[in-house]
């Protein structure tokens, strides 16, 4: 039971580093951006996991029930807006990648650096 509770945090660590690996080791720019979204998703998971209260339910108050166990709404508010901001910045990144493709003819970091060196 104790280990099961830590499982969420382990998955957070593993996902974070899978995303980080894609950002650092992959040469393809779209792959890097996908890696960045996995990294981002891992952080979202950490926050939401911390807000969970055992036996709780979604933080929506119900009339007449005062002693309901509710999970913490604050991490949820943070992550809710972060997801929307995340997609907007990802879209901006994709836009830059498309422009790079149009100028350099490639989305591989290696090729782009080679063209720049010439």
């Amino acid at each position: 039971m104790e280990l099961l509770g830590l499982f969420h945090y382990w998955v957070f660590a593993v996902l974070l580093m899978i995303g980080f690996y894609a950002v650092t080791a992959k040469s393809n720019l779209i792959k890097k951006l996908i890696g960045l979204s996995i990294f981002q998703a891992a952080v979202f998971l950490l926050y939401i996991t911390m807000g969970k209260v055992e036996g709780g339910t979604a933080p929506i108050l119900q009339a007449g029930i005062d002693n309901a166990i509710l999970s913490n709404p604050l991490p949820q508010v943070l992550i809710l807006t972060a997801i929307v901001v995340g997609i907007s910045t990802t879209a901006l990144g994709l836009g830059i990648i498309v422009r790079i493709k149009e100028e350099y003819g490639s989305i591989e970091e290696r090729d782009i650096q080679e063209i720049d060196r010439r």
Partner: protein
Amino acid sequence: MTELFGVFLLTFMVITAVAIVHTRHLLVAVILTGIFSLLMAANFFLLDAADVALTEAAIGAGISTVLFLAALALCNEHERAYTSSRLLALSVVTVVTLIVIYATFDKPRFGDPQAPVHQHVAPWYFDTTREAIDVPNVVTAVLASFRGYDTLGEVFVVLTAGIGVLFLFGVRPTRKSEMPNTTAPEPGQGLRHYLIPRVVGRLLIPFILLFGLYVQFHGDYGPGGGFQAGAIIAAAFILNALLEGESQALQVMPQKLLTGLMAGGALLYGGVGVVTLFMGGNFLDYSVLAADPVSGQHWGILLIEAGVGITVTGVLISIYHAFASREKH
């Protein structure tokens, strides 16, 4: 049982993430990203974050996948096999993973009500929401009222990103005279000639729009709000654009109108703040909007959520059109 399901979802998420990084076919990677987001959304729901799950499902699994596909259509679908510093990256990643896992042993037990996160301000937000704002969904109350400044900032980040994409692609509002003749056959006419997507899509769009409006206006009482509704409504319009083609979709919703929506929503949000200033309150203090402070809060939340929804809808549809109407070079 729920916990086992959670473990199942988390394990699958790790497998999907490994597959995403491993595959060299970018189309496969993008589709897997959609599946990853859907698993994430289900997991958020298990963790009691209904609002976040709704957002992740609409944005991560829906709009994000479409945007990646639109960008892929303009780039190569295959990733080239470059292997540089792979061993170094792998060793760094392994070491950091082990360090983070070691650190998790000091974390409070999962779901522990005595954990520090739940001790400081969280009870205050619950109590004050009951007294001063009186909307059932505490997430909405915190988002729109207590942390109204943050949300205003985030709306402007979304707006800025939208403006950035439009600038990058040099999108201009189409004038009447420049409108392409729709009777002539043209390449970007979507899936109009495929019977099943067209029939199913046309049937779905009104219901998606209705659900979007429900999520928008029921956000005070249940899971929902401007961010989620904006994404859902944008998804309906993007589905329409996929089915009917670009030019048809831009006639339904011209770029000029979309740009207006982008700016108008943010302006509505900021305008509510200025109005509260003139009515003698602090910036974004909705209590002064009506004679009764609690109903003033209700009005304020309704208005700024509408502003958020309008901006998010405008930005997401504009970004989609910016990608989709671009020709491959």
